């Protein structure tokens, strides 16, 4: 297996409605920025790995216009789509292509232009996977909606369970939103920037569904992310300071919804996220990391809902279970902290869904390369972990990045 280096990262502007550009133009903003950052042109590419959420823009197979807009003429184009983890899986696909030796230089492209379509309708097409068990139980899908359909319906049961088991309070949720949205204020690519936000202001937003308030939930964004990956040898010619993707790992469980839709395992507690722990342990092992708590400098967990930042921090094996709320209180997760979390502002500030999990890897790479700008963390980042959560809420994807390749031998 070969070492894989990140040599270019590009992000479009992210806002709720980009009516000034169409989908290809929006994606091109991220793609062209990545080419420029890496100092290459599409002629240097061996392949394109791309993904977005199926049907979110009201059309499918958007990679078919990629040839004209991404510089993909005469190149292989491979689309990967795995729900909320799509961007992470796209990153993994690009990693596989280079690590395997099949391609030298590839671009990973992930995007979403939610304002073009109907995200709820799109999500329903994803939810068909979850509906299959419903249907086999003889349940009308309309009945499922009465139990809180959609992503927030999944998140609230997880949040209640996590809060009970960890001691996380509503105040901790408010503080997570403040951490992320004030970081986002320093990130030009972020969507919801709220400098000076206070926990009290978050606590005053309307209750969406207990225990989550509007202030605890991500926006719907239009945006795109692109990353250029290449071999260690080629990276040397392009940059003095690449970021290396040391390892990727993923784990698919049965749907971690509560109950009926996921009654297939005994592990139905939606906050257990055993799959995240399995993926994280595999990723650390493959990356040569024995003590993630000591070795990881920065984390980008996938957290569209406030409690998930704390929950996934624990499931990424960065502390004991139930310890994350007090670590948040200690200030360790801030930009100048011992282990900064979501310096980009995270998914709770910016969620172009198909792009979100790739943006976690992109942020880890930017921080290692020292290119994050105003939201660059204070400490030197040698090793970082990037995460995605999605599928039919059953898939966890993890990538470990570092400033040096994986030690071998």
């Amino acid at each position, binding site marked *: 297996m070969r070492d894989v280096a990140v040599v270019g990262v590009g992000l479009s502007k992210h806002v709720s409605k980009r009516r000034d550009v169409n989908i290809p133009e929006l994606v091109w903003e991220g793609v062209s920025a990545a080419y420029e950052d890496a100092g290459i042109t599409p002629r240097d590419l061996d392949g394109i790995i791309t993904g977005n959420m199926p049907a979110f823009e009201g059309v499918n197979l958007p990679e078919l216009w990629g040839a004209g807009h991404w510089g993909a003429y005469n190149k292989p184009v491979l689309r990967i789509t795995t729900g909320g983890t799509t961007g992470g899986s796209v990153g993994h696909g690009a990693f596989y292509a280079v690590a395997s030796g099949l391609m030298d230089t590839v671009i990973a492209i992930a995007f979403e232009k939610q304002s073009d379509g109907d995200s709820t309708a799109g999500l329903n097409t994803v939810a068909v996977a979850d509906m299959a068990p419903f249907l086999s139980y003889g349940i009308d899908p309309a009945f499922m909606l009465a139990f809180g359909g*959609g992503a927030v319906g999944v998140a609230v049961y997880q949040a209640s369970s996590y809060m009970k088991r960890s001691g996380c309070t509503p105040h901790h949720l408010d503080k997570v939103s403040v951490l992320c949205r004030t970081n986002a204020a320093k990130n030009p690519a972020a969507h919801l920037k709220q400098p000076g936000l206070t926990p009290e202001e978050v606590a005053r937003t309307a209750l969406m569904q207990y225990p989550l308030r509007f202030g605890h939930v991500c926006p719907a964004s239009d945006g795109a992310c692109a990353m250029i990956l290449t071999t260690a040898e080629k990276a040397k010619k392009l940059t003095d300071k690449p970021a290396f993707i040391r390892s990727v790992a993923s784990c698919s469980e049965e749907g971690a919804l509560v109950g*009926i839709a996921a009654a297939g395992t005994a592990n139905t507690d*939606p906050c257990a996220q055993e799959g995240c722990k399995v993926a994280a342990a595999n990723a650390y092992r493959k990356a040569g990391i024995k003590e993630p708590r000591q070795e990881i400098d920065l984390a980008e967990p996938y957290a569209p809902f406030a409690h998930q930042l704390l929950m996934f921090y624990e499931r990424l094996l960065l502390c004991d279970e139930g310890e994350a709320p007090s670590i948040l209180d200690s200030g360790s997760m801030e930009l100048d902290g011992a282990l900064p979390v979501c310096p980009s502002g995270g998914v709770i500030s910016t969620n172009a869904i198909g792009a979100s999990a790739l943006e976690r890897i992109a942020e880890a790479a930017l921080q290692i390369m020292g290119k994050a700008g105003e939201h660059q963390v204070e400490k030197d980042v040698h090793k970082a972990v990037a995460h995605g959560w999605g599928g039919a809420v059953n898939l966890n994807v993890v990538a470990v990045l570092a400033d040096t390749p994986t030690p071998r031998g």
Partner: protein
Amino acid sequence: MEYKDETTSISGSWNLGQWHWKHETAVLMQHFLASLKDKKVLGLKCPECGLVYCPPKPYCSCLSIPEEWVEISDEGVVTTFTFSGSWSYGGMEEGAGTPRIIVGVMLDGSNTEMLSQLEDADRDHVDVGMRVKVKWADEPQGTIEDVMHSLPA
């Protein structure tokens, strides 16, 4: 080039209401549903690891085949919960905005959870660990909805 204003939008829609399908209830589930008519809740037990699945599943997380039917209680414990605020999630057209309490319930004798609508309860007193029981209809219909309403036990 940059264009400061909104570019021309071309809108359209797909009529997915014309897209029909049928999906059959699983055989194991049919047995489970039939027993509900007698107000009996059945679980399926794994011979290897002993986990009891309610509703039944044809395979276990330990990759064995559960095959022993066991009767389980219609009472259980709340594992998680939510209730809606003044605003309700899109898609909940009927009764949108009506405060409802939904709980995850693990029935005694089962190792899995089901969602249930909790009735006659004060939402400020609902918590993980609370005891609840199935609210049976006088004449259960043999559908999953028979066990999806509960009362404080």
